[in-house]
């Protein structure tokens, strides 16, 4: 199972999908496009403590984190 984690006021909301399920992948891809289109940054965990920012949906990514748009504090 792959997980999309969206940061929000509850801490985070998680959406899981089966990479072998076409319908689930399509829904996950739509969510990816919707969130990144709204200004979220998508990051994929690549190792322990390591991550990379991705611009394209990767159904093989185990965990994708969505970070709201950054602003100066």
């Amino acid at each position, binding site marked *: 199972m792959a997980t999309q*984690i969206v*940061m929000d006021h*509850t801490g985070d*909301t998680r959406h899981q999908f089966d990479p072998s399920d076409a319908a689930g992948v399509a829904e996950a891809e739509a969510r990816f496009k919707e969130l990144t289109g709204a200004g979220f940054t998508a990051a994929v965990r690549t190792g322990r403590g390591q*991550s990379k920012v991705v611009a394209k949906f990767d159904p093989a990514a185990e965990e994708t984190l969505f970070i709201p748009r950054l602003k100066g504090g």
Partner: protein
Amino acid sequence: MLHHRSYSQPRWARVLDDYCLSPLESEERGQDLLRQWLSPEQVEQYDKYQHFEVVGCDTGTRYRILRGKIMNIVELTADGRVTRRWCFAPEGTLATGDVMLAQKIALETFELNALAIANHDGRQGSVFPSRSFLDIDEPVWLVLGFACFSTLVWSFFYIVF
């Protein structure tokens, strides 16, 4: 497609659940998420000192991310002195752990872009202490506050009686 809080609840109940989550629960979830994405060394630092260090991907600069949401990023010199404080965070009301994780990922993967939108205090000289008066621990402030309060009370009784 599964949702981690879907279970057998109807949608309205999930929405209600989300909005009824106490700030404490949100903070706990944020801390859990942060720890899942930190390296073992960063977790160790965080457990010991309530901060952890990251290295900027573009400049190699070391930053210390303190537990907090505002002006909680400290830029360090090679010898560990504080040179500047940075402040940027995700939009919206997020848990402290979420904010710190966003800051870590930003500095480690798109440092200069993140700093371009960040606010900061002025660059400090090389003699700037790594621990300013603003870093005084909360208990010390409590003791100072109690001392001031006691002095005021004592002065009041001294003047009145």
